[in-house]
């Protein structure tokens, strides 16, 4: 069981610090997205890297559209992973969708985690009464339509928008490549599931101390979302960082690395 989970999620464990730090990637990328942070963090922490099912080098056969029809499936995978590695009181950095995944996991088994660090995470992407999520339903419908008509064209168009930082086009190319590496049917189902999710009600239940790293000009996660989460998660801290776009750990690696280090040592 333990072995199959490690294979299923392509789990890698680096470094041998006493404290364990899980780095969880977001939608459209994989564990390689953390490569800029690893060298600095590896010295002090035991780092656990993994790919969500359907991404990177995970076992694509393990993908089930039913199991992953909500973020909870991923949360359960994360808890499986913690159980397999016998992790308790570890820290976790979750990017984008992995923010809510780790939140759900921490609600089920709070003792697994001592700290959560969200990067570009959002409990709800759709605007609502009194809530700014960043998207209207019509925006998202257009996005789904573009994805289903020509996924690869969509990926190459969506990547630069999500990445931001037009001065570094190579970043967008990289993101487009990892997006294109996902099986189109999986990508569409997962994107729809993430964008339609609403975990605002789960925020107040979180007991684990949480740091919310918020970059500017993030097309998917406006500033208001970070602030909303900070206001609703009991033990949370809102930390704006000097980076732009939805993938700051790639576009401003040093800034993000420092911010993570600060959060972890506090």
């Amino acid at each position: 069981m333990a072995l199959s989970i490690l294979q299923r999620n392509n789990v890698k464990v680096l470094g041998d610090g006493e404290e364990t730090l899980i780095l969880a990637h977001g939608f459209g990328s994989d564990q390689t997205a953390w490569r800029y942070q690893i060298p600095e963090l590896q010295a002090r922490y035991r780092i656990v890297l993994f790919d969500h099912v359907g991404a990177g080098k995970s076992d694509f056969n393990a993908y089930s559209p039913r199991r992953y029809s909500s973020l909870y499936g991923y949360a359960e995978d994360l808890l499986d992973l913690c159980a397999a590695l016998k992790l308790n009181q570890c820290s976790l950095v979750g990017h984008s969708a992995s923010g809510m995944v780790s939140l759900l996991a921490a609600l089920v088994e709070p003792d697994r985690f001592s700290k959560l660090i969200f990067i570009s995470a959002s409990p709800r992407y759709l605007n609502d009464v009194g809530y700014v999520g960043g998207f209207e339903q019509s925006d998202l419908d257009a996005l789904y339509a573009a994805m289903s008509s020509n996924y690869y064209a969509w990926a190459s168009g969506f990547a630069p928008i999500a990445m931001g930082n037009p001065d570094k086009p190579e970043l967008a190319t990289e993101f487009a490549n990892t997006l294109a590496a996902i099986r189109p049917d999986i990508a569409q189902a997962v994107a729809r599931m993430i964008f339609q999710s609403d975990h605002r009600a789960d925020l107040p239940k979180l007991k684990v101390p949480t740091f919310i790293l918020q970059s500017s000009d993030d097309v998917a996660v406006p500033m208001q979302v970070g602030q909303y989460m900070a206001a609703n998660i009991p033990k949370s801290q809102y930390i704006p960082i000097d980076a732009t776009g939805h993938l700051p750990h790639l576009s401003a690696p040093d800034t993000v690395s420092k911010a993570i280090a600060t959060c972890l040592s506090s």
Partner: protein
Amino acid sequence: MFVKLNPNLHFQWLLSRLRLHHPDWLPTFRPFLAALCSLLVGLGMLEGWGTVRLLSLVLLLVCAMLPLSGLIVIAGVAIALIGTALICSNGLLTRHLLEPISVAVFGTVVGQFLRRVEWKLASQQILESLTQPKENGTAETLIGTAVSLLQDFTGADAAIALRQLDSVTAEALVCLPRTALPNQLTNPALFTAALEQNRSLFHSNYPAVEDASHVLLAQGVRSLAILPLQGSDNLRGAILLIWHRQTNLSDDLQQFTASLLSELRTLLQFCDTTLRLDKLQARFGAMLETIHQGVVFMDESGEQSWLNQAAAEQLGLPPGAIDPPMIAQAMATLRTQASNTAEITVQGAKLFSQPQATIRNWNWIFDYPQPKVLSVSSTPTRVRDVPGRLWLFDDITEQYLAQKELLERTQELSQTNTKLELAKVEAEAATRAKSLFLANMSHEIRTPMNAIIGMTELLLDTRLIPRQREFLETIYQSSNTLLTIINDILDFSKMESGKLELEHQPFDLRMCVESSLDLLASKAAEQGLELAYWVHPQAPNRLLGDTTRLQQILVNLLSNAVKFTKTGEIVVSVTPFPDPHPQSSNPQSLHKILFTVKDTGIGIPADRMHHLFKSFSQVDASITRQYGGTGLGLAISNQLSEMMGGQMWVESGGKLAGNPPLQWNPPWREQPLQQQHLESPLLAEQGSTFYFTITAAADSNSSSTSDTDIAQLQPELTGKQVLVVDDSPINRQILTLQAQSWGMVVHAVASAREALSLLGAKQPFDLAILDMQMPQMDGLTLGEMIRQQTPYQHLPLVLLTSMGKPDNMAAAAVEFAACLTKPVKQSQLYNTLIRVLGTQPIVIKPSQGTLEIDPHLAEQYPLKILLAEDNLVNQKVALLMLQRLGYKADVVSNGLEALKALQDQKYDLVLMDVQMPEMDGLEATRSIRQNYLLERCPRIVAMTANAMRGDREECLQSGMDDYISKPIQMQDLLRVLTQQQSSTHVLPAVLPVSEPTIDTKVLQSFRAMAGEQSAAILTELIDCYLEEAPKLIEEIDAAIAHSDAITLRRAAHTLKANSATLGAIAFSNACKELELLGRNCSPDNGSKGHSENNSNSNVNNCLAQGGDQATRLKLDYEQVKSALQLERHQE
């Protein structure tokens, strides 16, 4: 199963368990027990039982009612006993204590028994409540009820019903309470083990279990029961019963759940089936309402019948389940409204003739209220042995109308097609008529032309005053020109109508070029033009193609060049042309050859060049007046070269026109191949150069002896020093190249002065080639001067003259080794040089320029001629022409008459017109060939005015031997008459076609031996032979007849030797056979011991086979005779 004995914990547990309806609390027996106990206590008090006894009763009740495990009771009793024993050793007390202890044990046992009964009852109760029919009892609510009851009876904190969705996903169907799982979805790994073992798993201490679900643990699960649910149809699931406190899962509980499991399984399956049914129903309903077709179902039981929305509209009924009679009624009404009711009825009777028939495309057509066409289909069904029918009403109005329209259109189209076919037939007929008209035209024009040219020719041969001769020559030339024009027009018409076909015969490229030059040579010489040609050594000589048409192009270009060039020279060169797309399959056999005709004439104005290759177009109308011509020649040549797989283009004044190939570079840009050899003195701006290419396959069958020999180095010529004196640079160049190609060392000079100075330097020359016409000093004078120099008194001299001036030679004081007419033919030059340098004196016959008419030809070639010709004028012309050669001919005017004449007497030659009344020439020929034996069969030569292609083939196929086209030219007639005896068809079995009657080499070598007197000697020899040979043949004949082997041998031997001397090799061999026969059959040869009679009869038999040979010999002799007569005539 181990339970800690913690009283505090037990107390709490007891409190939490204090649910009085729980089977452990004996909800059924409790009142009875309590009542019984109360009764007994009351009775005991009345009886005055001791306190201990009364307490024992209470203890009994408590022990029976409390859900304590047997172990606890036993342990308690043990502790009590030991404690009592330790505290006091009083026997009485022990005795008193024994009573309550035994009561407690008994009570516990009773309690356990009752509890078991209670669980059974609970199980029954649950089953009862589940199987009770409920209103709105969906599968979900049922399973919800079941799980809820289970939870209630087992006292579980939570109960979950799970169903596996896929290998990694399970869905919670029922979750009590709702928060029992963090999410509706979870991992099926929770119940996999239970499913595999197919039994319920009970974990009293779940955290201790390996592989315990951390999610459940996180939810606070301490004890867990997993009840697997597995049914058919891949249904997999489980019911989880969860206790948040560690709970002893008693055997009663386990048995209780096991007894319920199968029922739950059925329930879950029912749930699943219902779900599927719902889905199916939704799908089915959506389909029925989505399709345009009306669907009606009826079964024969009359219970089942329904129709969809579309059918309801068509039948005017409400959709859904309808009584069958109503539907049947509606369908009948609809059918009677159709406009084709009768047709429907007929079809229906046919369709329903079989009970289980499947009906398709039963069209019901309606005109009212609006046009509508329904295609009715019906399929028989059978559900649980009840037959039924499914009807489909498809509205195909649009298709039907479209199809109807299509049908009409198709009919129209086929009508149009028929018309087109008719028009095509008419057009083809018109084309045939056109061709026929052309053929007739050709015939009609040629007939009078024949008369004009023939008569003029004859008239020219009569005594005339110069003025008359001048007029006649003009007429003669004009007639010939007119004939050329007519031929051009005919050719052109044929091309336009695609009727021109090319031959595909092997031919000699050099010979083709040379004969083209021959035709123009005299005219060029008259104008004082130099005519030269050069064939590249690498150009293949034997080709497959149409030599006549190639010659036509060349003659056309040459005659144009001669026409438009006043002074200077005309050079023809033939070079292989690099093909950019060689045929990969057979790269060697296909060759592209470039022909260049270059002149120094007036050139072509740039603005007129593009009209050149167009039909009926000349450069200038004024040119037409000045130079004449139809303007068709170039157009024809252009098309011919295209038909030969080539192109034609022209260059003049640095401008190009026509169709030059892409890779071709004009000579002023890049020197092409031939220009590297021929450094032409002509500038590009001067004159004009016509180019054309052809693609032809090399004749693979030819042994190609002559040309390869010429192309290779010759030992006789290699290293020989030759002096070439010619003022024409191009001639000089060509001669040099040719001589060099044979390995000779060439010194070429432009004038006599240079030549003399070279000779003065005492150069050791082997040969000198002198041009006749040179400025300052001509060839003759130069020859004389050379002879005056001592070292060169015996230097062989070869003189080059232009045609038309051969007579100067006779006056020359100098003896020339050879005299060649320009343009010098390569083979001729080669032969000449070989002979000259081979130290053999050569007798050069002056080229026969004009045709000499021998009025005594008939004496040499006596022939009996029959002329079959219907046209009186043509009769006259032919007779007169024959007469001039000393022949008389019998005349008939059609084929039938010809046949009759042949029956009366033997003819040697029939000149047969093709188009004649009664019986045409072809049919007559076929008849002659069928009816006459070979030796009696005359030679038949067609005379036709038809110039259309195919005539020649038709004539030869019908069995004719040769073909002359009208107007009859004297040359053609001569050829036919003199070739008469060397006819090949006469005895093809004896003489192979390839073997000549007379081997000229023999005669040539004889001439060489005899020297100056050769001609006279040869003539005498031939005369002598012709006199002797018939006598010898007579002897042979007689010898065979008289079986005289010795005479036969001698005569045959003599004839053999004589014939061989004169080169009649084949004839000689035939004689040799007879000689051998005579030798073999002679009596002194191996048959000495036989009697005379025997011997004679043997010889008879032996020589009998010689009879045939002798007959053949006589026929052969006729050939030899005529051939020798020809030779004699030429001497």
